[in-house]
C-alpha cells in the first residue's frame, strides 16, 4: 500500500482541523432537525446506525423473532468555527429508547441543547432525564411556536423539575440567529460550570 505523503511536516492549516460536537435533544416534534438545519453551514445530512442486537427484548418492531433490525437515524449539520475547528451538531433520534443502543452517542459531546415545546412539556421529559443520567451538561431551549402561550420561565422550570443552575432560553428554531444564540447560551453555561469546577479544585 502506498504510504507516501503521510508524513507532511509542513501541512496546511486544514490538515490540523479538529472537531467538537453538540447534541440537539428533545421530544418528538420539538424542532431538533429544524434547529440543526437553521444553523448548519452545510445542507443537513443523515447518518444511520443499524442495530441488530438486543432490540428484540425491547419491542417487536419488525416482527422477526430472532434478529431485529432497527435503523436509527441522526440528522446532523456542521459549523466552521474557524480555520481549524469544526462544530458538529447532531439531532438525536426521536425514539429515546434507542439512545442507549447507539454506543457513546453523547460521549465526547461538549453538551446538549434540550428543545422543549411548551405546549407539550411532557414530550421532552425523557430527553432531560437521559441528559441527567448520562451527566451531559445542557441548556433548555423553549421552541416558541406561533400558538405557544407565554409562560413564566420559573413556572416551566418547576414543571420540568430543572435545577436552578440550568439555563432556560426561548428561541425560534427556524431562525439561524436565534438558534445560534441557544448554542452561545450553552457554551457560556459550560464555561461557568468549568470555572466553578476549577475553583473548587
Amino acid at each position, binding site marked *: *500500500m502506498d504510504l*507516501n505523503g503521510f508524513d507532511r511536516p509542513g501541512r496546511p492549516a486544514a490538515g490540523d482541523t479538529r472537531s*467538537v460536537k453538540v447534541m440537539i435533544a428533545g421530544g418528538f416534534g420539538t424542532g431538533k432537525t429544524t434547529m440543526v438545519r437553521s444553523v448548519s453551514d452545510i445542507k443537513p*445530512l443523515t447518518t444511520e446506525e*443499524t442495530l441488530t442486537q438486543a432490540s428484540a427484548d425491547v419491542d417487536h418492531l419488525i416482527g422477526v423473532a430472532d434478529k431485529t433490525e432497527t435503523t436509527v437515524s441522526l440528522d446532523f449539520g456542521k459549523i466552521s468555527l474557524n480555520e481549524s475547528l469544526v462544530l458538529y451538531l447532531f439531532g438525536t433520534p426521536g425514539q429515546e429508547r434507542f439512545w442507549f443502543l447507539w454506543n457513546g452517542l453523547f460521549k465526547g459531546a461538549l453538551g446538549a441543547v434540550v428543545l422543549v415545546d411548551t405546549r407539550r412539556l411532557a414530550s421532552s421529559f425523557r430527553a432531560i432525564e437521559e441528559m441527567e443520567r448520562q451527566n451531559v451538561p445542557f441548556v433548555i431551549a423553549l421552541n416558541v411556536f406561533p400558538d405557544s402561550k407565554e409562560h413564566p420561565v420559573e413556572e416551566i422550570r418547576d414543571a420540568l423539575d430543572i435545577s436552578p443552575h440550568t439555563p432556560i432560553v426561548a428561541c425560534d428554531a427556524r431562525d439561524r440567529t436565534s438558534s445560534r444564540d441557544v448554542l452561545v447560551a450553552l457554551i457560556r453555561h459550560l464555561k461557568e460550570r468549568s*470555572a466553578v469546577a476549577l475553583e473548587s479544585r
Partner: protein
Amino acid sequence: MSAPRRPTDPSGLERYYVLTGGRSGPGGSASSLDVATLIVSGAASAPGMQHEHAEILRRCREPLSVAELGAHLQLPFNILAVLLADLLEAGCVEARDPIPAHDAGRGPDLALLEEVLSGLERL
C-alpha cells in the same frame, strides 16, 4: 404461493455482508470511533483496493467526519467503522476524535470553550 424471502435491495444486508466480509463491528482502534471523529487520509488509494476503501481515501483528503462519510457513502455507522478499521490498521488514515470539553487528566478546557464561543459569535 408467496415468493421466497430474499432481499433484492442492493443497499441491504447482503451488500453490507460483502463489504465487510461478514464482520459486524470493528475491533481495536476503530471501536472508539465517534460520529464526529474526523478522518484524514494519509495515503493515495492503491490499485486493487476495495472500492469503498478507495472512496474513503479520496473523500478524506480534507478532514471529514465519520457521520459525513456515512451520509455520502450511504453506509450505516457500524459498517463504515469496519471499513475504517481496515484503513486505520493499514496506516492509510488518521482518526481524530472530537475534543471533549472536559479532559479527564487536565480538567475543563476553558480555552477550547472560548474558541467555540468566539466562533459562534462571529456567525
